[in-house]
Protein backbone atom coordinates (compact mmCIF):
# COMPACT_ATOMS: atom_id res chain seq x y z
CA UNK A 1 0.00 0.00 0.00
CA UNK A 2 1.02 3.62 -0.31
CA UNK A 3 1.31 3.91 3.49
CA UNK A 4 3.71 0.96 3.58
CA UNK A 5 5.80 2.43 0.79
CA UNK A 6 6.02 5.77 2.57
CA UNK A 7 6.88 4.02 5.85
CA UNK A 8 9.87 2.62 4.00
CA UNK A 9 10.89 6.08 2.81
CA UNK A 10 10.64 7.58 6.29
CA UNK A 11 12.22 4.72 8.18
CA UNK A 12 15.57 5.09 6.41
CA UNK A 13 16.90 7.87 8.60
CA UNK A 14 15.54 10.17 11.27
CA UNK A 15 17.51 12.91 13.05
CA UNK A 16 16.58 13.86 16.60
CA UNK A 17 13.06 12.53 16.25
CA UNK A 18 12.32 14.86 13.35
CA UNK A 19 12.10 14.09 9.66
CA UNK A 20 14.33 15.77 7.15
CA UNK A 21 12.46 17.74 4.46
CA UNK A 22 14.42 15.68 1.91
CA UNK A 23 12.62 12.58 3.17
CA UNK A 24 9.32 14.35 2.68
CA UNK A 25 10.36 15.17 -0.89
CA UNK A 26 11.17 11.51 -1.51
CA UNK A 27 7.83 10.50 -0.07
CA UNK A 28 6.05 13.01 -2.28
CA UNK A 29 7.84 11.61 -5.33
CA UNK A 30 6.38 8.25 -4.36
CA UNK A 31 2.96 9.78 -3.95
CA UNK A 32 3.26 11.36 -7.40
CA UNK A 33 4.10 7.96 -8.90
CA UNK A 34 1.10 6.40 -7.15
CA UNK A 35 -1.19 9.08 -8.58
CA UNK A 36 0.23 8.60 -12.09
CA UNK A 37 -0.19 4.83 -11.82
CA UNK A 38 -3.80 5.56 -10.94
CA UNK A 39 -4.16 7.57 -14.19
CA UNK A 40 -4.31 11.02 -12.62
CA UNK A 41 -3.25 13.55 -15.25
CA UNK A 42 0.35 14.77 -14.89
CA UNK A 43 -0.60 18.44 -14.39
CA UNK A 44 -3.26 17.52 -11.82
CA UNK A 45 -0.92 15.17 -9.93
CA UNK A 46 1.81 17.83 -9.84
CA UNK A 47 -0.60 20.45 -8.59
CA UNK A 48 -1.94 18.14 -5.91
CA UNK A 49 1.55 17.13 -4.74
CA UNK A 50 2.49 20.82 -4.43
CA UNK A 51 -0.55 21.45 -2.23
CA UNK A 52 0.28 18.43 -0.10
CA UNK A 53 3.96 19.46 0.13
CA UNK A 54 3.26 22.58 2.12
CA UNK A 55 1.04 20.66 4.54
CA UNK A 56 3.52 17.79 4.71
CA UNK A 57 6.37 20.09 5.73
CA UNK A 58 4.41 21.18 8.78
CA UNK A 59 5.51 20.42 12.34
CA UNK A 60 2.60 18.03 12.73
CA UNK A 61 4.03 15.71 10.07
CA UNK A 62 7.76 16.25 10.66
CA UNK A 63 7.47 15.48 14.39
CA UNK A 64 4.88 12.74 14.04
CA UNK A 65 5.56 9.18 15.21
CA UNK A 66 3.63 7.96 12.18
CA UNK A 67 4.64 10.39 9.42
CA UNK A 68 3.67 8.04 6.58
CA UNK A 69 0.14 7.82 7.90
CA UNK A 70 0.06 11.60 8.29
CA UNK A 71 1.12 12.22 4.72
CA UNK A 72 -1.43 9.74 3.41
CA UNK A 73 -4.10 11.35 5.58
CA UNK A 74 -3.26 14.79 4.15
CA UNK A 75 -3.26 13.30 0.65
CA UNK A 76 -6.65 11.73 1.21
CA UNK A 77 -8.12 14.98 2.45
CA UNK A 78 -6.79 16.99 -0.49
CA UNK A 79 -8.05 14.38 -2.94
CA UNK A 80 -11.49 14.24 -1.36
CA UNK A 81 -11.83 18.02 -1.45
CA UNK A 82 -10.84 18.22 -5.10
CA UNK A 83 -13.27 15.43 -5.96
CA UNK A 84 -16.08 17.56 -4.56
CA UNK A 85 -15.83 17.11 -0.81
CA UNK A 86 -19.05 15.32 -0.09
CA UNK A 87 -21.65 13.70 -2.31
CA UNK A 88 -23.34 16.40 -4.41
CA UNK A 89 -27.05 15.79 -4.83
CA UNK A 90 -28.34 16.02 -8.37
CA UNK A 91 -31.09 18.64 -8.38
CA UNK A 92 -33.34 19.72 -11.23
CA UNK A 93 -33.95 23.45 -11.02
CA UNK A 94 -36.44 25.43 -13.05
CA UNK A 95 -39.86 24.96 -14.56
CA UNK A 96 -40.77 21.71 -16.26
CA UNK A 97 -39.90 20.28 -18.68
CA UNK A 98 -36.38 20.34 -17.27
CA UNK A 99 -33.76 19.32 -19.79
CA UNK A 100 -30.76 17.09 -19.08
CA UNK A 101 -28.31 16.67 -21.92
CA UNK A 102 -25.82 13.77 -22.03
CA UNK A 103 -22.53 14.32 -23.85
CA UNK A 104 -19.16 12.64 -24.08
CA UNK A 105 -16.74 10.73 -26.26
CA UNK A 106 -17.58 7.54 -28.11
CA UNK A 107 -18.39 4.52 -25.98
CA UNK A 108 -18.29 6.36 -22.63
CA UNK A 109 -21.71 5.03 -21.59
CA UNK A 110 -24.09 7.88 -22.47
CA UNK A 111 -27.02 5.89 -23.87
CA UNK A 112 -26.94 3.48 -20.95
CA UNK A 113 -26.66 6.40 -18.51
CA UNK A 114 -29.68 8.15 -20.07
CA UNK A 115 -31.85 5.13 -19.37
CA UNK A 116 -30.44 4.60 -15.88
CA UNK A 117 -31.04 8.26 -15.06
CA UNK A 118 -34.58 8.10 -16.40
CA UNK A 119 -35.32 5.11 -14.20
CA UNK A 120 -33.74 6.81 -11.20
CA UNK A 121 -35.68 10.04 -11.69
CA UNK A 122 -38.95 8.21 -12.15
CA UNK A 123 -38.36 6.44 -8.84
CA UNK A 124 -38.13 9.96 -7.37
CA UNK A 125 -41.55 10.82 -8.69
CA UNK A 126 -40.59 12.43 -12.00
CA UNK A 127 -42.16 11.76 -15.39
CA UNK A 128 -39.17 11.50 -17.74
CA UNK A 129 -39.07 11.48 -21.52
CA UNK A 130 -36.04 10.03 -23.29
CA UNK A 131 -35.03 11.74 -26.52
CA UNK A 132 -32.78 9.93 -28.99
CA UNK A 133 -30.72 12.57 -30.77
CA UNK A 134 -27.89 10.25 -31.87
CA UNK A 135 -28.53 9.80 -35.57
CA UNK A 136 -24.94 8.80 -36.35
CA UNK A 137 -24.27 5.50 -34.64
CA UNK A 138 -25.94 2.48 -36.28
CA UNK A 139 -28.99 1.42 -34.24
CA UNK A 140 -28.36 4.07 -31.54
CA UNK A 141 -32.00 5.11 -31.41
CA UNK A 142 -33.01 1.44 -31.42
CA UNK A 143 -30.72 0.88 -28.43
CA UNK A 144 -32.40 3.72 -26.52
CA UNK A 145 -35.87 2.51 -27.51
CA UNK A 146 -35.04 -0.99 -26.26
CA UNK A 147 -33.83 0.35 -22.93
CA UNK A 148 -36.86 2.65 -22.70
CA UNK A 149 -39.16 -0.35 -23.17
CA UNK A 150 -37.27 -2.24 -20.48
CA UNK A 151 -37.77 0.50 -17.90
CA UNK A 152 -41.16 1.68 -19.08
CA UNK A 153 -40.11 5.20 -20.05
CA UNK A 154 -41.22 6.67 -23.39
CA UNK A 155 -38.58 7.35 -26.03
CA UNK A 156 -39.05 9.98 -28.71
CA UNK A 157 -36.90 10.36 -31.79
CA UNK A 158 -38.24 11.78 -35.03
CA UNK A 159 -36.48 13.72 -37.74
CA UNK A 160 -33.14 13.76 -39.48
CA UNK A 161 -31.36 16.70 -37.94
CA UNK A 162 -30.10 16.12 -34.37
CA UNK A 163 -30.41 19.80 -33.44
CA UNK A 164 -34.02 20.19 -34.62
CA UNK A 165 -34.81 16.78 -33.19
CA UNK A 166 -33.54 17.75 -29.74
CA UNK A 167 -35.56 20.96 -29.78
CA UNK A 168 -38.67 19.10 -30.89
CA UNK A 169 -38.05 16.53 -28.17
CA UNK A 170 -38.52 19.27 -25.61
CA UNK A 171 -41.73 20.33 -27.39
CA UNK A 172 -42.91 16.71 -27.22
CA UNK A 173 -42.37 16.78 -23.44
CA UNK A 174 -44.46 19.94 -23.20
CA UNK A 175 -47.14 18.20 -25.23
CA UNK A 176 -47.22 15.03 -23.12
CA UNK A 177 -46.60 16.59 -19.71
CA UNK A 178 -43.22 14.92 -19.13
CA UNK A 179 -41.38 17.03 -16.56
CA UNK A 180 -37.82 15.90 -17.34
CA UNK A 181 -36.33 15.45 -20.80
CA UNK A 182 -33.16 13.36 -21.00
CA UNK A 183 -31.43 13.80 -24.34
CA UNK A 184 -28.98 11.20 -25.63
CA UNK A 185 -26.42 12.49 -28.12
CA UNK A 186 -23.85 10.91 -30.40
CA UNK A 187 -20.39 10.17 -29.05
CA UNK A 188 -17.98 12.82 -30.29
CA UNK A 189 -14.33 13.75 -30.06
CA UNK A 190 -13.36 17.13 -28.60
CA UNK A 191 -10.93 17.42 -31.52
CA UNK A 192 -13.80 17.27 -34.03
CA UNK A 193 -14.91 20.89 -34.50
CA UNK A 194 -18.07 20.04 -36.48
CA UNK A 195 -19.34 17.62 -33.85
CA UNK A 196 -18.48 19.98 -30.97
CA UNK A 197 -20.34 22.73 -32.81
CA UNK A 198 -23.33 20.41 -33.14
CA UNK A 199 -23.24 19.72 -29.41
CA UNK A 200 -23.15 23.43 -28.70
CA UNK A 201 -26.14 23.98 -30.98
CA UNK A 202 -28.11 21.20 -29.30
CA UNK A 203 -27.40 22.90 -25.99
CA UNK A 204 -28.40 26.33 -27.31
CA UNK A 205 -31.78 25.19 -28.59
CA UNK A 206 -32.73 23.00 -25.62
CA UNK A 207 -31.49 25.24 -22.79
CA UNK A 208 -30.66 22.36 -20.42
CA UNK A 209 -30.53 22.64 -16.65
CA UNK A 210 -27.73 20.10 -16.86
CA UNK A 211 -25.13 19.06 -19.38
CA UNK A 212 -23.75 15.82 -17.97
CA UNK A 213 -20.55 14.42 -19.40
CA UNK A 214 -20.29 10.65 -19.25
CA UNK A 215 -16.69 9.60 -18.68
CA UNK A 216 -15.19 6.15 -18.60
CA UNK A 217 -13.41 5.40 -15.30
CA UNK A 218 -10.57 3.64 -17.15
CA UNK A 219 -9.62 6.75 -19.15
CA UNK A 220 -5.99 7.72 -18.83
CA UNK A 221 -4.19 11.02 -19.33
CA UNK A 222 -6.65 12.14 -22.00
CA UNK A 223 -9.39 12.64 -19.38
CA UNK A 224 -8.09 16.07 -18.45
CA UNK A 225 -8.09 17.19 -22.09
CA UNK A 226 -11.58 15.81 -22.76
CA UNK A 227 -13.01 17.41 -19.62
CA UNK A 228 -11.45 20.78 -20.34
CA UNK A 229 -12.54 20.85 -23.98
CA UNK A 230 -16.11 19.72 -23.30
CA UNK A 231 -16.36 22.26 -20.50
CA UNK A 232 -15.20 24.96 -22.88
CA UNK A 233 -17.53 23.93 -25.70
CA UNK A 234 -20.74 22.87 -23.95
CA UNK A 235 -20.51 24.18 -20.35
CA UNK A 236 -20.59 20.83 -18.62
CA UNK A 237 -22.46 21.08 -15.31
CA UNK A 238 -21.30 17.74 -13.96
CA UNK A 239 -20.24 14.19 -14.68
CA UNK A 240 -21.35 10.60 -14.62
CA UNK A 241 -18.32 8.38 -14.07
CA UNK A 242 -19.05 5.06 -15.76
CA UNK A 243 -17.75 1.49 -15.52
CA UNK A 244 -16.64 1.89 -11.93
CA UNK A 245 -17.49 -1.78 -11.47
CA UNK A 246 -14.13 -2.56 -13.06
CA UNK A 247 -10.77 -2.32 -11.31
CA UNK A 248 -9.48 0.87 -12.90
CA UNK A 249 -8.09 3.09 -10.12
CA UNK A 250 -10.06 5.96 -11.66
CA UNK A 251 -7.61 8.87 -11.55
CA UNK A 252 -9.64 10.32 -14.42
CA UNK A 253 -12.18 11.37 -11.77
CA UNK A 254 -9.62 13.68 -10.20
CA UNK A 255 -8.49 15.07 -13.54
CA UNK A 256 -12.08 15.88 -14.51
CA UNK A 257 -13.07 17.58 -11.25
CA UNK A 258 -9.77 19.40 -10.77
CA UNK A 259 -9.82 21.01 -14.19
CA UNK A 260 -13.51 21.94 -14.32
CA UNK A 261 -14.55 22.44 -10.71
CA UNK A 262 -17.75 20.56 -11.58
CA UNK A 263 -19.02 17.64 -9.49
CA UNK A 264 -19.38 14.01 -10.34
CA UNK A 265 -23.05 13.36 -9.57
CA UNK A 266 -23.29 9.67 -10.30
CA UNK A 267 -21.24 6.52 -10.66
CA UNK A 268 -22.13 3.90 -13.27
CA UNK A 269 -21.53 0.55 -11.65
CA UNK A 270 -22.75 -1.98 -14.19
CA UNK A 271 -24.74 -2.61 -17.34
CA UNK A 272 -28.17 -3.00 -15.75
CA UNK A 273 -30.66 -0.19 -15.36
CA UNK A 274 -30.31 -0.17 -11.57
CA UNK A 275 -26.53 0.24 -11.76
CA UNK A 276 -26.44 3.97 -11.06
CA UNK A 277 -25.22 5.12 -7.66
CA UNK A 278 -24.52 8.46 -6.04
CA UNK A 279 -20.85 9.40 -6.24
CA UNK A 280 -18.89 9.61 -2.99
CA UNK A 281 -15.66 11.66 -3.16
CA UNK A 282 -14.10 10.08 -0.07
CA UNK A 283 -14.58 6.55 -1.40
CA UNK A 284 -13.10 7.58 -4.73
CA UNK A 285 -10.11 9.17 -2.99
CA UNK A 286 -9.35 5.85 -1.28
CA UNK A 287 -9.68 3.99 -4.55
CA UNK A 288 -7.32 6.33 -6.40
CA UNK A 289 -4.66 6.19 -3.69
CA UNK A 290 -4.89 2.41 -3.67
Amino acid at each position, binding site marked *: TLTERLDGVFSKLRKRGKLHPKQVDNALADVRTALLEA*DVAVEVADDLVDRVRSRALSEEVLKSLTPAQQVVKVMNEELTVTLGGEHRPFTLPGAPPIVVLLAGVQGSGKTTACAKLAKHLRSKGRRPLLVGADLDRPAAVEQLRTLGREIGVPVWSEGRDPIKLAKNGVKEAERTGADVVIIDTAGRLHVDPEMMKQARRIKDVTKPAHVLMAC*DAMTGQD*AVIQAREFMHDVDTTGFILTKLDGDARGGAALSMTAVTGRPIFFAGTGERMDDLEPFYPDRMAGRILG
Partner: protein
Amino acid sequence: GLFHGGTTETTWQQLEDILLKADVGPKAASDMVQRVRADHPTGGNVIDTVRGEILSILGPDRPLALDGRLSVILVVGVNGSGKTTTIGKLAKRLVTEGRVVSVAAADTFRAAAGEQLEIWARVSGAQLIAQDRGADPGAVAFDAVKASEARGVDVLIVDTAGRLHTKQPLMDELSKIKRVIEKAGATVDETFLVLDAQTGQNGIAQARAFTDAVEITGVVLTKTDGSAKGGIVLAVREELGVPVRFVGVGERPDDLRPFDAGVFADRLLS
Protein backbone atom coordinates in the same frame (compact mmCIF):
# COMPACT_ATOMS: atom_id res chain seq x y z
CA GLY B 1 13.84 19.70 -31.23
CA LEU B 2 13.65 19.33 -27.50
CA PHE B 3 17.29 18.30 -27.04
CA HIS B 4 19.17 20.02 -29.80
CA GLY B 5 20.15 22.96 -27.66
CA GLY B 6 21.93 20.66 -25.24
CA THR B 7 20.31 19.07 -22.25
CA THR B 8 19.22 20.18 -18.80
CA GLU B 9 17.34 18.49 -16.00
CA THR B 10 14.25 20.22 -17.36
CA THR B 11 14.54 18.71 -20.82
CA TRP B 12 14.76 15.17 -19.39
CA GLN B 13 11.71 15.95 -17.26
CA GLN B 14 9.92 17.26 -20.34
CA LEU B 15 10.71 14.05 -22.18
CA GLU B 16 9.35 12.02 -19.29
CA ASP B 17 6.18 14.16 -19.30
CA ILE B 18 5.67 13.50 -23.02
CA LEU B 19 5.84 9.76 -22.34
CA LEU B 20 3.61 10.03 -19.25
CA LYS B 21 0.98 12.01 -21.11
CA ALA B 22 0.98 9.32 -23.78
CA ASP B 23 -0.12 6.74 -21.12
CA VAL B 24 3.20 4.90 -21.25
CA GLY B 25 3.01 4.60 -17.44
CA PRO B 26 5.27 6.15 -14.77
CA LYS B 27 7.70 3.26 -14.27
CA ALA B 28 8.11 2.57 -17.98
CA ALA B 29 8.52 6.28 -18.72
CA SER B 30 11.13 6.72 -16.01
CA ASP B 31 13.03 3.59 -17.10
CA MET B 32 13.04 4.68 -20.72
CA VAL B 33 14.35 8.14 -19.84
CA GLN B 34 17.11 6.63 -17.64
CA ARG B 35 18.23 4.33 -20.45
CA VAL B 36 18.24 7.05 -23.08
CA ARG B 37 19.95 9.48 -20.75
CA ALA B 38 22.78 7.01 -20.13
CA ASP B 39 23.38 6.92 -23.89
CA HIS B 40 23.08 10.65 -24.38
CA PRO B 41 24.71 12.48 -21.48
CA THR B 42 24.95 15.74 -23.43
CA GLY B 43 21.79 15.60 -25.51
CA GLY B 44 21.89 15.27 -29.28
CA ASN B 45 19.69 12.77 -31.11
CA VAL B 46 17.58 11.92 -28.08
CA ILE B 47 14.17 11.91 -29.78
CA ASP B 48 15.50 9.59 -32.50
CA THR B 49 16.77 7.21 -29.83
CA VAL B 50 13.43 7.25 -28.02
CA ARG B 51 11.64 6.64 -31.29
CA GLY B 52 13.99 3.70 -31.89
CA GLU B 53 13.20 2.34 -28.42
CA ILE B 54 9.48 2.53 -29.12
CA LEU B 55 9.91 0.73 -32.45
CA SER B 56 12.00 -2.02 -30.89
CA ILE B 57 9.38 -2.57 -28.16
CA LEU B 58 6.56 -2.74 -30.70
CA GLY B 59 8.36 -5.27 -32.87
CA PRO B 60 7.77 -5.90 -36.56
CA ASP B 61 4.34 -5.20 -38.05
CA ARG B 62 2.32 -8.40 -38.46
CA PRO B 63 -0.12 -8.23 -41.34
CA LEU B 64 -3.17 -10.45 -41.40
CA ALA B 65 -2.47 -13.84 -42.99
CA LEU B 66 -5.65 -15.77 -43.62
CA ASP B 67 -5.33 -18.85 -45.78
CA GLY B 68 -7.28 -21.69 -47.35
CA ARG B 69 -10.14 -23.07 -45.31
CA LEU B 70 -12.46 -21.10 -43.05
CA SER B 71 -10.49 -18.55 -41.02
CA VAL B 72 -12.05 -17.41 -37.78
CA ILE B 73 -11.36 -14.12 -36.04
CA LEU B 74 -12.69 -13.72 -32.50
CA VAL B 75 -13.11 -10.12 -31.32
CA VAL B 76 -13.10 -9.33 -27.60
CA GLY B 77 -12.67 -6.42 -25.22
CA VAL B 78 -14.25 -4.29 -22.53
CA ASN B 79 -17.48 -2.38 -22.96
CA GLY B 80 -17.57 0.37 -25.56
CA SER B 81 -14.02 -0.12 -26.86
CA GLY B 82 -15.13 -0.34 -30.51
CA LYS B 83 -15.46 -4.09 -31.24
CA THR B 84 -18.63 -4.07 -33.35
CA THR B 85 -17.50 -1.06 -35.39
CA THR B 86 -14.05 -2.60 -35.91
CA ILE B 87 -15.67 -5.82 -37.16
CA GLY B 88 -17.71 -3.84 -39.68
CA LYS B 89 -14.60 -2.08 -40.95
CA LEU B 90 -12.52 -5.26 -41.05
CA ALA B 91 -15.29 -7.13 -42.86
CA LYS B 92 -15.45 -4.38 -45.48
CA ARG B 93 -11.70 -4.50 -45.94
CA LEU B 94 -11.74 -8.27 -46.47
CA VAL B 95 -14.74 -8.15 -48.82
CA THR B 96 -12.95 -5.48 -50.86
CA GLU B 97 -10.01 -7.91 -51.11
CA GLY B 98 -12.38 -10.37 -52.74
CA ARG B 99 -13.09 -12.69 -49.82
CA VAL B 100 -16.40 -14.15 -48.74
CA VAL B 101 -16.98 -12.87 -45.21
CA SER B 102 -19.51 -13.64 -42.50
CA VAL B 103 -20.03 -11.94 -39.14
CA ALA B 104 -21.56 -13.66 -36.12
CA ALA B 105 -23.67 -11.68 -33.67
CA ALA B 106 -22.51 -13.47 -30.54
CA ASP B 107 -23.28 -10.41 -28.39
CA THR B 108 -26.73 -11.63 -27.40
CA PHE B 109 -26.85 -9.47 -24.31
CA ARG B 110 -26.70 -5.76 -25.03
CA ALA B 111 -29.65 -3.74 -26.30
CA ALA B 112 -29.67 -3.46 -30.12
CA ALA B 113 -26.29 -5.22 -30.49
CA GLY B 114 -27.71 -7.46 -33.20
CA GLU B 115 -29.31 -4.52 -35.01
CA GLN B 116 -26.02 -2.61 -34.92
CA LEU B 117 -24.06 -5.53 -36.42
CA GLU B 118 -26.80 -6.10 -38.98
CA ILE B 119 -26.26 -2.60 -40.33
CA TRP B 120 -22.52 -3.16 -40.48
CA ALA B 121 -23.04 -6.45 -42.31
CA ARG B 122 -25.06 -4.64 -44.96
CA VAL B 123 -22.51 -1.82 -45.23
CA SER B 124 -19.56 -4.21 -45.52
CA GLY B 125 -21.08 -6.85 -47.79
CA ALA B 126 -20.63 -9.57 -45.20
CA GLN B 127 -23.23 -12.22 -44.38
CA LEU B 128 -24.83 -11.97 -40.97
CA ILE B 129 -25.39 -14.94 -38.68
CA ALA B 130 -27.54 -14.10 -35.70
CA GLN B 131 -30.17 -15.44 -33.33
CA ASP B 132 -32.63 -13.72 -31.01
CA ARG B 133 -31.43 -11.56 -28.17
CA GLY B 134 -30.80 -13.70 -25.12
CA ALA B 135 -29.66 -16.75 -27.10
CA ASP B 136 -26.56 -18.54 -25.84
CA PRO B 137 -23.51 -16.84 -27.39
CA GLY B 138 -21.76 -20.22 -27.75
CA ALA B 139 -24.73 -21.51 -29.72
CA VAL B 140 -24.53 -18.51 -32.06
CA ALA B 141 -20.80 -19.09 -32.55
CA PHE B 142 -21.34 -22.80 -33.23
CA ASP B 143 -24.10 -22.02 -35.73
CA ALA B 144 -21.93 -19.42 -37.37
CA VAL B 145 -19.09 -21.89 -37.97
CA LYS B 146 -21.41 -24.52 -39.46
CA ALA B 147 -23.25 -22.01 -41.62
CA SER B 148 -20.02 -20.37 -42.78
CA GLU B 149 -18.52 -23.72 -43.79
CA ALA B 150 -21.69 -24.68 -45.62
CA ARG B 151 -21.74 -21.39 -47.52
CA GLY B 152 -18.07 -21.47 -48.52
CA VAL B 153 -17.16 -18.46 -46.43
CA ASP B 154 -13.45 -17.56 -46.29
CA VAL B 155 -13.44 -15.52 -43.08
CA LEU B 156 -15.85 -15.59 -40.14
CA ILE B 157 -15.57 -12.72 -37.66
CA VAL B 158 -17.23 -13.31 -34.28
CA ASP B 159 -18.51 -10.29 -32.32
CA THR B 160 -18.82 -10.72 -28.57
CA ALA B 161 -20.41 -8.65 -25.82
CA GLY B 162 -18.30 -6.06 -24.07
CA ARG B 163 -17.25 -7.32 -20.66
CA LEU B 164 -15.12 -6.04 -17.80
CA HIS B 165 -12.20 -8.38 -17.22
CA THR B 166 -12.91 -8.36 -13.48
CA LYS B 167 -16.07 -10.39 -14.02
CA GLN B 168 -14.86 -13.97 -13.98
CA PRO B 169 -18.15 -15.57 -15.14
CA LEU B 170 -18.03 -13.34 -18.23
CA MET B 171 -14.39 -14.22 -18.88
CA ASP B 172 -15.32 -17.91 -18.49
CA GLU B 173 -18.11 -17.38 -21.01
CA LEU B 174 -15.53 -16.07 -23.46
CA SER B 175 -13.29 -19.12 -22.98
CA LYS B 176 -16.35 -21.26 -23.62
CA ILE B 177 -17.19 -19.40 -26.85
CA LYS B 178 -13.67 -20.14 -28.09
CA ARG B 179 -13.94 -23.83 -27.12
CA VAL B 180 -17.30 -24.11 -28.87
CA ILE B 181 -15.82 -22.70 -32.10
CA GLU B 182 -13.12 -25.35 -31.87
CA LYS B 183 -15.71 -28.06 -31.10
CA ALA B 184 -17.50 -26.99 -34.27
CA GLY B 185 -14.40 -28.04 -36.16
CA ALA B 186 -12.79 -24.67 -36.77
CA THR B 187 -9.65 -23.10 -35.35
CA VAL B 188 -9.63 -19.56 -34.03
CA ASP B 189 -6.89 -18.10 -36.22
CA GLU B 190 -6.86 -14.67 -34.61
CA THR B 191 -8.24 -13.32 -31.35
CA PHE B 192 -8.20 -9.54 -31.34
CA LEU B 193 -8.38 -7.48 -28.18
CA VAL B 194 -10.02 -4.18 -29.08
CA LEU B 195 -8.49 -1.47 -26.91
CA ASP B 196 -9.58 2.17 -26.76
CA ALA B 197 -6.60 4.50 -27.29
CA GLN B 198 -7.69 6.58 -24.28
CA THR B 199 -7.30 3.62 -21.89
CA GLY B 200 -4.99 4.27 -18.99
CA GLN B 201 -2.93 1.81 -16.96
CA ASN B 202 -5.93 -0.47 -16.54
CA GLY B 203 -5.28 -1.53 -20.13
CA ILE B 204 -2.52 -3.88 -19.06
CA ALA B 205 -4.83 -5.56 -16.51
CA GLN B 206 -7.38 -5.97 -19.29
CA ALA B 207 -4.83 -7.50 -21.64
CA ARG B 208 -3.60 -9.94 -18.99
CA ALA B 209 -7.09 -11.14 -18.13
CA PHE B 210 -8.20 -11.52 -21.74
CA THR B 211 -4.97 -13.37 -22.59
CA ASP B 212 -5.64 -15.80 -19.73
CA ALA B 213 -9.19 -16.37 -20.96
CA VAL B 214 -8.65 -16.68 -24.72
CA GLU B 215 -5.03 -16.08 -25.71
CA ILE B 216 -4.89 -12.79 -27.62
CA THR B 217 -3.01 -12.70 -30.95
CA GLY B 218 -3.35 -9.01 -31.57
CA VAL B 219 -4.62 -5.64 -30.38
CA VAL B 220 -6.77 -3.29 -32.41
CA LEU B 221 -6.19 0.20 -31.06
CA THR B 222 -9.32 2.30 -31.65
CA LYS B 223 -10.21 5.98 -31.57
CA THR B 224 -6.70 7.11 -32.50
CA ASP B 225 -8.38 10.04 -34.26
CA GLY B 226 -8.76 11.59 -30.79
CA SER B 227 -5.97 13.19 -28.74
CA ALA B 228 -5.04 10.07 -26.72
CA LYS B 229 -1.78 8.42 -27.77
CA GLY B 230 -2.45 4.82 -26.75
CA GLY B 231 0.92 4.36 -25.04
CA ILE B 232 -0.49 1.47 -23.02
CA VAL B 233 0.15 -0.81 -26.01
CA LEU B 234 3.88 -0.63 -25.24
CA ALA B 235 3.34 -2.39 -21.91
CA VAL B 236 0.98 -4.88 -23.54
CA ARG B 237 3.62 -5.74 -26.14
CA GLU B 238 6.49 -5.85 -23.66
CA GLU B 239 4.77 -7.87 -20.95
CA LEU B 240 2.53 -10.16 -22.99
CA GLY B 241 4.18 -10.19 -26.39
CA VAL B 242 0.93 -9.11 -28.06
CA PRO B 243 1.43 -6.87 -31.12
CA VAL B 244 -0.89 -4.15 -32.39
CA ARG B 245 -2.36 -5.29 -35.72
CA PHE B 246 -4.78 -2.51 -36.73
CA VAL B 247 -5.75 0.99 -35.67
CA GLY B 248 -9.17 2.60 -35.82
CA VAL B 249 -9.01 6.16 -37.14
CA GLY B 250 -12.68 7.09 -37.17
CA GLU B 251 -16.26 5.88 -37.27
CA ARG B 252 -16.70 5.26 -40.99
CA PRO B 253 -16.34 1.93 -42.83
CA ASP B 254 -12.90 2.76 -44.27
CA ASP B 255 -11.45 4.06 -41.00
CA LEU B 256 -9.26 1.04 -40.25
CA ARG B 257 -5.55 0.86 -41.06
CA PRO B 258 -2.93 -1.83 -40.60
CA PHE B 259 -0.70 -0.88 -37.68
CA ASP B 260 2.34 1.17 -38.61
CA ALA B 261 4.80 1.40 -35.73
CA GLY B 262 6.61 4.41 -37.20
CA VAL B 263 3.39 6.41 -37.50
CA PHE B 264 2.47 5.40 -33.95
CA ALA B 265 5.85 6.46 -32.55
CA ASP B 266 5.80 9.81 -34.36
CA ARG B 267 2.33 10.55 -33.05
CA LEU B 268 3.27 9.54 -29.52
CA LEU B 269 6.24 11.90 -29.51
CA SER B 270 4.39 14.79 -31.17
